[in-house]
């Protein structure tokens, strides 16, 4: 008897819970709803991981079955074939072949296909079925197929392919129970049998496509009517005049949200950190431990956690843009401009996000499939003027540039200076991108191919899961790398002890380091105090403001001055210009280094990037100091 959803689980003896954990892989073409199904199956019991040595990430999750049983589900990158040409295809191929390090060969495969485009998507069934693994074929987007008048006979397809087939709608949740039934039958999966129509030669794409077309014809597949709404919306979003206007509105909306919209939430978080810090200070006895917790951990980690609302809002935006299908249109519109600097349309949104913070921007580069374009985007993202530079810019500009109106009352010298710094970062990014794309990251000459998925409503579940995942990644880093740096800096600033007390900052280890680096930064017009600031700002750029506040607050001559006055006392105009330029270009951010290491799966790129940006910053800060010193 042919069953459209595999063997009925009830007729099987309850499988053993002990022993081996079963692994089932989800495979499918891009935009087939893999992630939606994965979320349905695993909910929050999932994590994102990288395979060793490659930048491709995969998601691992546990699907809860009855009787306290669980099964591991691996969500593999979207592919159209198993020819190992791109890194994504190689990873998918290796995992399914059982040759991927760190992952056992899957016990079964769930092949998910878009039922509205079955004739083409079935092509992937050929290489998957030839693997000889137990396979469940999932025809997704049933609601869309039926809504547009399409039809497919899942039973007949099951008979033809000789493997269970289910018709579901992962976003609505209909039919997902049949997928659970399949998972439940582990480890008694049906051994695969060859399909009725002999499998084609897999390397021959037209042959595979003909096989898929024959297969779908045999199952009375009636393709759905063209997606009317998608065409109507594209008539607007890709309109020669209205399209770019909508695009600009979206860009301004993203910008406005990550700057202004996030501000109240960021203030709230900052307040909460400050109040709780004060509370700890008030309740704990005055010991070194209190100083470590309040001045080290709380202010250090807190300075980073403040950015969480901004990051979450940004990812909410990107999630909506990506899931709705607009991101592909935005990439299309931006492509020509980005192509001029050797990048492509998909780099646009990550680079825009980098104006808020490079960390989420670098995480957002995952939407770029071309690895070289992705790495180039990662490498230039920190040049974009992130919000952590603003406190430094504001302080130095306010201290050194007198406010004079330039263009009316709303645009003065200070605003011009700030805008100039934004332009400076942008120019550095362009120069670097061109340099990279014409040398080490010269494009593989792979053609730029951008698929335009139909517009769909984003689902709340998928957006929420995405945000939780990003928040988790961000907070884990704040709790590890940033925490460690904050503690180390505190220790360096408070040792060696004098009479059991913390030393004056100049006599601390941090101070000694500041004195030690002074000869190196003297040409830029910086003294040892700025040197300490540069070192502490390695954790996060805005930390220099706090550090300088502490140093000047302690020191005798500047004690009574405000921070701005103290800075004017300490720095020449040339030095101030050098400081601004240095902060515009240097990679003074441990979080960014950590995230680049994570996203590029190794230390190579973050080290190259850090060295490049530091040298770049040093050279231009030196020039800025020299040039400005000629006039002032």
């Amino acid at each position, binding site marked *: 008897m042919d069953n459209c959803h595999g063997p009925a689980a009830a007729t099987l003896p309850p499988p053993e819970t002990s022993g081996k954990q079963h692994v089932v892989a989800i495979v499918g073409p891009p935009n087939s709803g893999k992630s939606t199904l994965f979320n349905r199956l695993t909910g929050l019991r999932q994590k994102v991981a990288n395979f060793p040595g490659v930048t491709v990430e995969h998601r691992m999750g546990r699907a809860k079955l009855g009787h306290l049983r669980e099964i591991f589900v691996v969500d593999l990158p979207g592919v159209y074939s198993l020819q190992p040409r791109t890194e994504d295809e190689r990873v998918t191929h290796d995992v399914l072949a059982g040759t991927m390090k760190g992952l056992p060969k899957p016990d079964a495969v769930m092949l998910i296909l878009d039922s509205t485009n079955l*004739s*083409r998507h079935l092509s992937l069934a050929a290489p998957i079925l030839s693997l000889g693994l137990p396979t469940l074929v999932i025809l997704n987007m049933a609601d869309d197929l039926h809504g547009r008048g399409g039809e497919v006979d899942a039973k007949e397809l099951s008979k033809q392919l000789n493997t269970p087939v289910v018709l579901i709608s992962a976003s609505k949740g209909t039919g997902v129970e049949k997928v659970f039934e399949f998972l439940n039958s582990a480890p008694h999966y049906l051994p695969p049998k060859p399909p009725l129509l002999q499998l084609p030669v897999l390397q021959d*794409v037209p042959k595979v*496509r003909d096989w898929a077309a024959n297969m779908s014809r045999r199952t009375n597949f009636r393709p759905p009517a063209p997606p009317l709404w998608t065409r109507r919306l594209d008539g607007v979003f890709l309109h020669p005049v209205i399209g*770019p206007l909508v695009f600009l509105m979206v860009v301004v909306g993203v910008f406005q949200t990550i700057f202004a919209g996030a501000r109240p939430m960021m203030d709230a978080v900052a307040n909460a950190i400050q109040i709780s810090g004060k509370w700890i200070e008030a309740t704990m006895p005055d010991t070194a431990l209190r100083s470590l917790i309040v001045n080290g951990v709380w202010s250090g980690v807190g300075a980073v956690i403040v950015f969480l609302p901004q990051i979450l809002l940004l990812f909410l935006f990107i999630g909506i843009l990506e899931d709705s299908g607009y991101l592909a249109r935005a990439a299309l519109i931006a*492509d020509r401009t980005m192509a001029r600097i050797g990048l492509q349309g998909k780099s646009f949104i990550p680079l825009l996000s980098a104006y808020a913070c490079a960390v989420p921007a670098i995480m957002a580069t995952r939407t770029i499939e071309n690895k070289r374009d992705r790495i180039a985007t990662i490498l230039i993202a920190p040049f974009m003027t992130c919000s952590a530079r603003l406190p430094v810019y504001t302080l130095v500009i306010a201290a050194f540039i007198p406010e004079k109106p330039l263009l009316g009352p709303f645009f003065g010298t200070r605003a011009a200076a700030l805008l100039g710094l934004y332009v400076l970062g942008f120019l550095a990014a362009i120069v670097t991108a061109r340099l990279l794309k014409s040398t080490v990251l010269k494009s593989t000459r792979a053609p*730029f191919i951008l698929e335009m998925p139909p517009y769909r409503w984003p689902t709340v579940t998928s957006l929420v899961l995405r945000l939780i995942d990003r928040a988790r990644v961000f907070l884990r880093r704040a709790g590890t790398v940033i925490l460690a740096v904050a503690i180390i800096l505190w220790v360096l600033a408070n040792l060696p002890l004098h009479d059991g007390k913390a030393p004056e900052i100049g006599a601390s280890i941090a101070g000694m380091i500041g004195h030690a680096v002074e000869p190196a930064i003297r040409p830029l017009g910086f003294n040892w105090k700025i040197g300490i600031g540069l070192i502490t700002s390695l954790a996060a750029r805005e930390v220099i403001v706090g550090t300088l506040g502490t140093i000047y607050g302690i020191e005798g001559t500047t004690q009574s001055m405000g921070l701005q006055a103290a800075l004017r006392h300490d720095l020449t105009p040339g030095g101030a210009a050098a400081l601004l330029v240095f902060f515009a270009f240097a990679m003074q951010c441990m979080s960014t280094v950590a995230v680049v290491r994570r996203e590029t799966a190794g230390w190579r790129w973050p080290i190259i990037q850090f060295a490049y940006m530091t040298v770049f910053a040093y050279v231009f800060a030196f020039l800025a100091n020299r040039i400005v010193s000629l006039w002032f």
Partner: protein
Amino acid sequence: MQIGFNKKISAAPSGPRNLTALKKGETGILECIDMSDIDAQRLMELGFLPGHTVTRAHAAPGGDPRVFRVDGSEVALRRETAVHLILR
């Protein structure tokens, strides 16, 4: 009718008819893909198969890249790629 196996295809109008010749809404039949095997296979997997119809849909402002309707989906290609897809 000219069938292009010439390795160098310029964007000049004298070359064989390629995808860039299609006006919005116009349909053509693909003859061959004049690219390396790897790139051609990738395009074929997306539906650009010889003998299949290709319809030109929307485009980015300025006309590049252009969107093509092929085998049930829509795919955008830059001009530099589209000139290598030869029409019958």
